[in-house]
């Protein structure tokens, strides 16, 4: 697997679209809500996208003791991921009828 590009599936496009639409860091639960994906599908996909360097992730800044709950893992698109997302979503939009995709 390594840095090889993940397959562009509907789920991949949905996740990329969620990031492009929000334009900010998203947690797994937020992506689930936005992309309407189940947790069983989402996390393997996020892992693959992270391995391909399309996404990067970090923990919330605060410590769990301060938050009083487990920290959220926040994901965001990398430069490579944003390029791929723009290209793939643009191609999909063209296929669907001339719509264009512009990141926020």
């Amino acid at each position, binding site marked *: 697997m390594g840095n090889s590009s993940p397959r562009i599936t509907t789920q991949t496009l949905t996740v990329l679209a969620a990031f492009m639409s929000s334009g900010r860091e998203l947690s797994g639960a937020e992506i689930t809500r936005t992309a309407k994906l*189940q947790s*069983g599908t989402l*996390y393997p996909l996020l892992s693959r996208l992270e391995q391909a360097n399309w996404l990067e992730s970090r923990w919330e800044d605060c410590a769990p003791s301060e938050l009083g709950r487990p920290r959220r*893992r926040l994901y965001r698109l990398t430069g490579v991921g944003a390029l791929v997302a723009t290209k793939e979503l643009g191609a999909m939009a063209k296929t669907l009828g001339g719509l264009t995709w512009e990141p926020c």
Partner: protein
Amino acid sequence: MGALLAVLAAVGTVSLTVSATLIVEEFKAWTPWMTRWLIERSVFRLPEGLQDRCREEWSSHVLETPGKIGKLIVAFGFLRAANALTLDYLALVSSGSSLTLSFKMPEPESRRGAFTASTLTNLLIMVLLILFTAAIRRVEQPRHCNSQMYPSACGLIVSHPSATPRHLVR
């Protein structure tokens, strides 16, 4: 007779309502525990290097999910996610990739133990389900089906003239 039936029906309705309420309350009380258990089961299936990260991430995901049933469904999904992540990890290891990520090679013995424990748990759940189904079927069937005394209860057609009530025989 009618009054007795009405009383029995009322008692039955009340009993059913109380039982249903109790079952729902029990279910609600057990849901957080089941959710935690599912997360732990899922985390247990993962490679060691991913366990801490996923435990914290998935626990926070469940907390962000509204509703107890919703939390439970999300937690069930983690089982599938853990399987997929482990398969990806094994593919990564078998391909001999130099990409290390945060994975650590699990001990073969511990993985074998994990597999055995997981399989045993799944088998136990299957056996319990089979027993539960068998118990339900047994309750649904009449226990003592005496075809001579109660032919209609056994689904037999009463064709013998002697079985017909006398006032109906012309």
